[in-house]
């Protein structure tokens, strides 16, 4: 993965930057010893590593503002970091950057059930947002698989989704307002507890901008009352195409499950060994979950099961208890970890129109044979968000490159059938150079024009999202401005 050459002038000013930062931050919040900065050398996309020049751990919006103002004045690139769980390299440092870690800012600022929102500092983890309100039977809906560790800051940067967004939407649909620090140190408030933007929907463009427009330090999030209950049903099929047709038929029937998850043989086996959820041995497994009161669940599941039966499932099993449901979900949410026990893997995230599912799975199978690398498929079938996991051996020369090429072929395939490169993980560095396959130069220019407005010097989260050659002129201008 090509990264821009570190700016020697910035590296030469390291001591100046450190001493300026130490004037606004406590000693333990400025990490400059190379032995310690190494801890920030990668995120969950571990194939790529680069220790940053420095890392800082501010504790307040005011401290974040100080850091950004100083970095802006010194021309130092800043890479914001939530919990470092990005699968796309969204928090990968450059050698001349300051990592701005938000983890110390994890307070709940306000909980308001009457107006159904919570306001938190964004270093708080996704799961602990729900944790703050679940005693009162509320929850925060977006549920990425990494929800135990991932921070709201990263969720906003990547517009994270999860298994249950078929019903509840992704981060952008549950984000009401932000406090954001601009690269020049100015603090802006956008949105709030009320609905809709009064003017242009800046909140909409900030969410999913991968930390390139500003550093979000506080967020107002929509919380919902927990449904009375939820229950999954497992459906096994001996054919991917039939499973795909079943998904489409369920959706067309008028019942909208909260989640429809799909796993293929390789993933089923890996997850079963990991979670002992009683997954059947089959080609394609669907986990379909519905919510409501007991009679409502019974009614919905009976209709769903009726549809499934028309497709001759090899297995059809309703969860019988809360423990069983938990195991079923544990298996699904552990898919990446379980596959990781088999080998190194690269997780992709393309989205396709649901109708293209059989075709895309068939093509992935063919590519897998061509490349000689196994691939497991686990994904959110209701919304077409795929997660092919390509297994490779990082210690085997050439395997990573082969895996990258295979991955790129799959993502191009997703775009070619009418889908996109990434459904919920973000572009980061991983898919940066494929952006031209989905977007024309004018499309990318329009996006970069937004960055020009928010971060004119192109210092925030450099070398992500846009292909290096496409953003080169802007980054050069930034270095020339030094």
């Amino acid at each position, binding site marked *: 993965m090509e990264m821009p050459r570190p700016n020697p002038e910035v590296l030469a000013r390291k001591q100046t930057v450190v001493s300026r930062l130490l004037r606004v931050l406590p000693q333990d919040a400025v990490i400059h010893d190379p032995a310690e900065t190494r801890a920030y050398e990668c995120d969950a996309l571990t194939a790529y590593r680069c220790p940053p020049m420095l890392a800082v751990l501010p504790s307040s919006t005011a401290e974040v503002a100080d850091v950004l103002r100083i970095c802006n004045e010194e021309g130092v690139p800043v890479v914001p970091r939530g919990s470092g769980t990005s699968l796309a390299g969204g928090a990968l440092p450059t050698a001349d950057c300051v990592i701005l870690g938000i983890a110390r800012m994890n307070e709940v600022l306000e909980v308001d059930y009457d*107006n159904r929102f919570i306001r938190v500092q964004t270093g708080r983890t996704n799961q602990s947002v729900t944790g703050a309100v679940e005693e009162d039977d509320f929850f925060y809906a977006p549920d990425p698989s990494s929800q135990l560790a991932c921070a709201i800051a990263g969720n906003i940067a990547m517009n994270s989704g999860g298994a249950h967004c078929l019903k509840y939407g992704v981060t952008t649909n549950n984000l009401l307002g932000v406090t954001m620090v601009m690269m020049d140190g100015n603090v802006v408030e956008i949105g709030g507890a009320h609905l809709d933007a009064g003017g242009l929907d800046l909140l909409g*463009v900030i969410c999913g901008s991968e930390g390139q427009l500003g550093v979000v330090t506080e967020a107002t999030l929509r919380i919902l009352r927990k449904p009375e209950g939820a229950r999954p049903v497992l459906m096994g099929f001996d054919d991917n195409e039939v499973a795909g047709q079943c998904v489409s038929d369920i959706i067309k029937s*008028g019942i909208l499950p909260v989640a429809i998850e799909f796993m293929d043989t390789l993933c089923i086996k890996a997850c079963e060994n990991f979670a002992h959820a009683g997954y059947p041995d089959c080609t394609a497994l669907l986990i379909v979950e519905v919510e409501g009161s007991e009679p409502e669940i019974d009614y919905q599941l009976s209709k769903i099961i009726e549809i499934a039966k028309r497709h001759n499932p090899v297995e059809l099993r309703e969860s019988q208890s809360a423990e069983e449901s938990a195991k079923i979900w544990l298996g699904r949410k552990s898919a990446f970890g379980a596959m990781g026990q088999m080998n190194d893997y690269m997780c992709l995230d393309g989205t396709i129109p649901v109708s293209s599912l059989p075709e895309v799975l068939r093509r992935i199978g063919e590519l897998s044979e061509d490349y000689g690398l196994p691939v497991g498929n686990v994904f959110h079938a209701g919304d077409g*968000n795929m997660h092919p996991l390509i297994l490779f051996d990082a210690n085997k020369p050439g395997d990573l490159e082969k895996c990258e090429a295979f991955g790129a072929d799959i993502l191009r395939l997703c775009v070619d059938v009418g889908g996109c490169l990434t459904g919920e993980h973000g572009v980061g560095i991983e898919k940066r150079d494929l952006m031209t396959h*989905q977007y024309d130069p004018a499309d990318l220019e329009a996006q970069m024009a937004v960055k020009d*407005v928010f971060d004119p010097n192109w210092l925030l989260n450099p070398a992500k999202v846009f292909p290096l050659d496409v953003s080169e002129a802007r980054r050069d201008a930034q270095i020339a401005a030094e």
Partner: protein
Amino acid sequence: MKPETEAELAEMVAGLTEPVNIVGGGTRGITGPAATIETVGLSGIALYEPGALTIVAQVGTPLARIEAALEAEGQQLAFEPMDHRGLLGTGGTPTIGGVVATNISGPRRIQAGACRDFLLGVRFVDGTGQVVKNGGRVMKNVTGYDLVKLMAGSCGTLGVLTEVSLKVLPKPEVSATLAIQVPDTTTAIRALSAALKSPFEVSGAAYDPQDGQALLRVEGFAESVAYRVEQLKSVLAGIGEIAEVSDSAALWRALRDVAAFHGKDGDVWRISVKPSDTPDLAARLEAKQTLFDWGGGLIWALVPNGTDLRARLGAFEGHATLVRAEASTAETLGRFQPEAAPIQALTNGIRHKFDPRGLLNPGLMG
């Protein structure tokens, strides 16, 4: 000007020498320069996949045509776009492009989300005549910046939309409405809020002070609706007398379109606030008539012509939009809530990038 294709539109915009007003069906009272670009020539449903819950259409496609296509498959636009014609006294035919450009959502916004939440992709021609696309037709897409949201509600000021992709949802089997008799706004908001924070999935929560009724809608399959209606009755017990309303669909259509103000003299304002702030704010309005939607978070106010409602309200968290007024009032007060200086700087910056010559609905949004 009335282009028939996107390419033709791009050429027209590139060749513009004077400001233009972008017109869809012309029903939403967006006024501007005398010269117009009308998008009705860009019409047709390009793709509709019920099993994928997605529809793609040219912007000039009549909303009614889209709704009919969805209806045939038992689906709908869940954000329930309002029809402005009765309120504004406009003619014309609402288009899907107009709905998106103004980000218009109705009562179900409180549960399902706004128009912008259902918008999956856009194609548009920017102020220089450049064709740009963003998003796509799949439900989850975080590839690059989300200009889709930015375009929703930008009222033609960033570009002329040519094609939109939308997520659709199954149409509920049945719907039922409870009316709770309440003495005042405070009690009404309390009732709506109690229902909205219950697990019974309320899809409409409004209050009409004229008849003192807080209204709650529940939708879904029959058994579920019946169950939730009963549960809600016990949640709301003690607040006021509860009755079931028979013609639920007509009632919510009237609320959606603010029928209570139709044909009445005065300016119309639309205020978005945190619901618990509503009783205080409503008391300061000195309105001729009010109507509350979105659990109280949306206030419709009918006030005497020329009233500077923002001055009357003072600082508050949220925004007030002038929906209906004489052109001179709209000019003086501005249709949209003025924004804080740093936000204004960002929106001006974006507008300048997308429409550097300032020719598309200039000044409309401030």
